[in-house]
């Protein structure tokens, strides 16, 4: 409380304190969940965690760095491919999954040099071309056997129940790690730079924000997260078919989750992922019409509600569940009287 001027800058509100408490509680429950859940439920939850990672990463890229990529399947496919390759070389498959995320990030770093020079739609399609090229090159590897694909056989050495638990915990850890990392990043000095870029790139640059390296950091971070998600998906699906992993559909899912949830808000992407997970559970079986619906909904949200559901809630109620930014509280201000 600033007594002289009568306004105060808040980071934590009672709503956000309560949310963080609930999140921590949920986390404890989630860690212990394998004790009480059946195999099917755990597989579904693992999938949900992967969706949350994908949405958070795409949101970081598009919502914060202003980079709309239609080629994030590049990192998803590479994450899975690296896992298969490392496991084939004898690396423990679980270690291979983590290592794949690091390798994908290492690939993303040099890739960012040309790609981040591109603007808007050029960046979007440029990334798509890179994904297509990677897809074709992976096809050349004899291990993959073209579109037939290959399996992560190394996982068969583990007891199925143990395997399921470990994959579940890995997915939970990956989700918690990527969300937590993103949260801390956004609250840091770098986070202020990132949000400044989101709001206005030219203005951010004019007050001394290093726009290129901030964007590069997000690009590489998103590649790491999506690569890890690809490795986790492979662990649940067991078979690696290049066509399935390098499909542009993954990016379509990410766009749907983030657009509907709320682009550029931390909570919105998570909300969108949960929503997408529910929609998929209920309507996924309708196949093609389900995809038509996803594309149509994304189109309508882009045109009519570009801030997504969460963005609309936030604007109307001022609700912030997670303390990412700062709030200016003028209620007690003398200036207004």
């Amino acid at each position, binding site marked *: 409380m600033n007594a002289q001027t009568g306004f105060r800058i808040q980071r934590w509100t009672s709503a956000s304190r309560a949310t963080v408490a609930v999140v921590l509680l949920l986390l404890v429950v989630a860690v212990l969940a394998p004790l009480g859940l059946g195999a099917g439920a755990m597989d579904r939850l693992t999938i949900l965690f992967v969706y949350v990672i994908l949405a958070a990463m795409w949101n970081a890229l598009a919502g914060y760095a202003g980079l709309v990529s239609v080629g994030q399947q590049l990192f998803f496919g590479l994450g899975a491919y690296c896992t298969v390759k490392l496991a084939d070389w004898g690396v423990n498959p679980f270690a291979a999954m983590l290592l794949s995320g690091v390798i994908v990030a290492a690939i993303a770093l040099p890739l960012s040099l040309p790609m981040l020079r591109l603007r808007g739609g*050029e960046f979007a399609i440029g990334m798509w*071309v890179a994904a297509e*090229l990677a897809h074709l090159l992976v096809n050349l590897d004899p291990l993959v056997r073209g579109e037939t694909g290959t399996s992560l056989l190394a996982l068969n050495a583990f007891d199925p129940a143990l395997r399921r638990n470990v994959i579940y915990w890995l997915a939970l850890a990956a989700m918690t790690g990527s969300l937590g990392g993103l949260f801390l990043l956004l609250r840091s000095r770098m986070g202020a730079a990132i949000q400044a870029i989101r709001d206005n790139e030219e203005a951010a640059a004019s007050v001394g924000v290093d726009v290129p390296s901030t964007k590069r950091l997000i690009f590489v971070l998103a590649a790491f997260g999506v690569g890890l998600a690809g490795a986790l998906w492979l662990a649940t699906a067991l078979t690696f078919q290049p066509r399935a992993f390098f499909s542009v559909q993954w990016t*379509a899912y990410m766009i749907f989750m983030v657009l509907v949830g709320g682009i550029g808000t931390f909570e919105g992407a998570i909300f969108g992922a949960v929503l997408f997970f529910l929609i998929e559970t209920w309507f996924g079986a309708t196949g093609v019409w389900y*995809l038509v619906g996803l594309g*149509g*909904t994304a189109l309508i949200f882009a045109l009519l509600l*570009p801030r997504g559901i969460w963005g609309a809630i936030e604007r109307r109620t001022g609700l912030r569940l997670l303390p990412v930014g700062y709030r200016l509280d003028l209620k007690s201000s003398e200036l207004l009287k």
Partner: protein
Amino acid sequence: MINTLVQGVLLGGYYALIAAGLSFMFSVMRIINLAHGSLAVLAAYALLVLAQNFGISPFLGLLVVLPAMAALGFLLQRFVLDRALRAGPLVPILATFGLSIVIDNLLFEAFGANTRSLANAIGTLSYSSIALPGNIYVGVLAVGTFAVAVLVLGGLQLFLSFTAYGRAIRATSEDPDTAGLVGIDARLATAIASAIALATVGLAGAALGMRATFDAYAGGSQLLFAFEAAVIGGAGSVWGTLLGGIVLALAQTLGAKVSPLGFLIAGHGVFLVVLFVRIWLAGGVTPLLRRRT
């Protein structure tokens, strides 16, 4: 070898044709339409339906499909692109990508997974060829496509340079507000540009259907080819786009000689190499597609 090169150059005509609409729309509206390829495939299916269900030759069918595509372009600009442009720089990308998913999956729902072709509907044209000196045979269809591409690219340039509508479109693309001040209906100008762009997409769809097979999900790769041709050529001029298409097609035909996957790998590879070289030469943030002036 010479034969391969000749075939490559002619295939480049198709890429230039499909790139023409993409770069035209970008130069006028600053929008890269991610549904571009899907719309071309939609036109190909429309011609297929006319041929199969009503026995209408694809050439006559174009008399129906091209105006329909132009009308679609007009509506697309009015209801999607215009609104998307005003909502911010990211929205046109997201909106047109959403549209492409809708089109692709509706086509899949309507026509299934089988690959289709218009080759059966155009009789001997699909395989007849002309003998050139040196034991080289070129397909009549390929030569025709190349000629259409040159006509479309040249026609667009002449239209922009010498007609009243062309001037209105150029003025709007420079500055819509100022264009409005001097009595130009900016919305109408961009809607007409969009209609023209989609009419060329209709032509490209016809060429795609006649020269090769297509399926419901072929739109994505056609978009990439169009984008690659436009970027390689620099899109600054008619001849740039044509050259871009030819370079892309030559790389693909030569790549196909090496391995079956080489066709696509060499195409994407040459695009990325050109990209790197241009970025390296330019420094700073590089606009790949240039506006026509």
